[in-house]
């Protein structure tokens, strides 16, 4: 604050004098420079998308620096949905995200209850085994899974159902991949609910599972929300299985990965639409980050600092 008012007076030499007297001011100035630098680097790419999206496609040639829109063409944001069914890709992504989140929250709640509130032999190693899953490269799973979901694996003469091009071929691997983090977050939250509340619920007439869903889960709402938000964002962002488990058509449950790539593949010159599609695709997660940033921060750090 002090730095701002001083520099706004424009008395640079006076500022230098006072800076020598109190190094705090130099640190403060350095801090603002660094902060603005980071704001610029993180946000500039989005600005670049906006410049491209608003510039009519035929006007897109080499931009100077700083780039400014070469014309004003908001129609791109409409054409995004007409050139390819981008809304269907987005809808598919939402369905996959919500379905995976639901599966993960239910299964991770059961496991979180077990790891957070029960003692049993093999608890530690089992938790490690589950957490290890999320560290393996998807590439190490893909070949057998691809063959499984395309009906090429048979057990006792029954071949596996053909799940390729269905939501299941993605929801299943997503759930397995992102569940360990949710299990970890939920077991931390569930473990903090006092035993007395669970006992009280059981005395009052719930079963152990009833106590989980009627008392422990509602009381851990922030943790459940954190796990849910992180799972949804992870699914929405996922590339590997989203790319490989469908043939890429919107009506085959292909998510936004394919929506974006279809511009790159089929409409190689429509740079304004690529940019506009990217902006539309980012909006849902950007909103989620603004709304749920505390949850994201706490979830990510809790997940990482477990060791």
């Amino acid at each position, binding site marked *: 604050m002090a730095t701002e008012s001083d520099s706004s007076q424009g008395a640079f030499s006076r500022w230098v004098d006072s800076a020598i007297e109190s190094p705090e001011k130099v640190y403060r100035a350095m*801090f603002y420079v660094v*902060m603005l630098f*980071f*704001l610029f680097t*993180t*946000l500039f*790419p*989005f600005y*670049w*998308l906006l410049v*491209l999206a608003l510039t009519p496609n035929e006007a897109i*040639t*080499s931009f100077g620096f700083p*780039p400014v829109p070469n014309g004003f063409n908001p129609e791109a944001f409409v054409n995004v949905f007409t050139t390819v069914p981008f809304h269907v890709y987005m809808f598919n992504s939402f369905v996959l995200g919500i379905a995976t989140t639901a599966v993960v929250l239910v*299964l*991770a709640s*059961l*496991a979180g209850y*077990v790891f957070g509130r029960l*003692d*049993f032999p093999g*608890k530690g190693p089992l938790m490690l085994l*589950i957490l290890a*899953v999320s*560290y*393996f*490269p998807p*590439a*190490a799973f*893909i*070949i*057998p*899974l691809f063959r*499984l979901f395309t009906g*090429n694996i048979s057990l006792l003469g029954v071949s596996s159902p053909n799940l390729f091009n269905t939501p299941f071929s993605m929801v*299943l691997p997503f759930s*397995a991949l992102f*569940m360990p983090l949710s299990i970890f977050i939920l077991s931390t939250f569930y473990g903090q609910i006092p035993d007395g509340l669970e006992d009280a619920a059981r005395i009052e007439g719930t*079963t*152990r599972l009833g106590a989980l869903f009627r008392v422990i889960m509602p009381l851990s709402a922030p943790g459940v929300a954190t796990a849910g938000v992180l799972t949804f964002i992870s699914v929405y*962002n*996922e*590339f*590997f299985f989203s790319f*490989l488990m469908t043939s890429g058509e919107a009506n085959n449950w292909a998510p936004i*990965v394919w929506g*974006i*790539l279809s511009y790159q593949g089929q409409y190689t010159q429509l*740079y304004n639409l*690529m*940019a506009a599609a*990217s902006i539309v695709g980012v909006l849902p997660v950007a909103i989620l980050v*603004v709304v749920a*940033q505390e949850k*994201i*921060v706490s979830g*990510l*750090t809790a997940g*990482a*600092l477990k060791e």
Partner: protein
Amino acid sequence: MATTDEGIRDSERSGAYVSAVRWMENLSDPQFAYLLLTPVLLLLGLIAFWPLLSTFRMSLFADNLVGSAALGEFVGLENYVALLTGERDALLVRPFLDPSTPFRSALTVTLIFTLFSVFFETVVGFAQALVLDQDFRGRRWVRVAIIIPWAVPIVIQGMIFFLLFQPNIGFLVDPLQNWGIFSATPLSNPVDSMIILIVADVWKTSAFMALIILAGLQSVDRSLYDVGRVAGASKYQQFKMITLPLVLPSVLVAMLFRTIGAMRIYGLIETVVGCNTVPSLSCLVVTTFRGSRMYGTSAAVAFITAGLIGLVVSVYIVKYADTETGA
């Protein structure tokens, strides 16, 4: 009175339901624990553990390029030997390991990418964490701005950098070329592409580093800084002697996670430059089994990738244990 009252209500439910509930309620803690874990373990078994073992098994069989069967005869570790000695390279789209063309062979590409991206992410993430650790107005919004790239889907991240470095449109390519840094078509030049991919990865994932390091910074007992000040330490000395050693464990944890992430890089490459230009290990797995149907080889590459990550994880854990005991 009370019992009969509550009793009647229970008997309205079917006998099977009541006896199932009774059975579950009377399980001991370990039995109940394993019952609740069953669905999770089934899912993970089907989607993770079985594929992992199956991949390993496949990697012990020869490729079968003709005919309908996926695999040829059992060859033991031959696939691994052929990959590591370079014998198999001729059959692959890009070589697995060829030190003479480090930007064209999968193993070296992956290692170069991992090394540089994790290094710069750590530096940038640390700097961002230090900024977010300050108290200033609008901190919430700066934090949002820094987190947003982390939440951007990989495909859109790729698209952004594809558009930034497209020679026809990008404002960056011409100047970079004039300064002699980039070639005229950076997106088909392996070295230029590698640099672009590293910048893209740093842009997206530094935020993750920053948040974890920030959590480490904020867990440092503030009174330690008072002790430092009283002892006459300058800001820089305080940072070097108090902050750095105390956040080192969280930095290592963040680096571990990012290393794991970087080593499985695939989607970004696929979107920005394509697997032909920058063939990472995951790229090689996909191209070999999808394009060439070389299941044995592909599985061997996949398993080597997993093994490599396992190796890195162990190194970090040992290192982490050192800082914990050393501190």
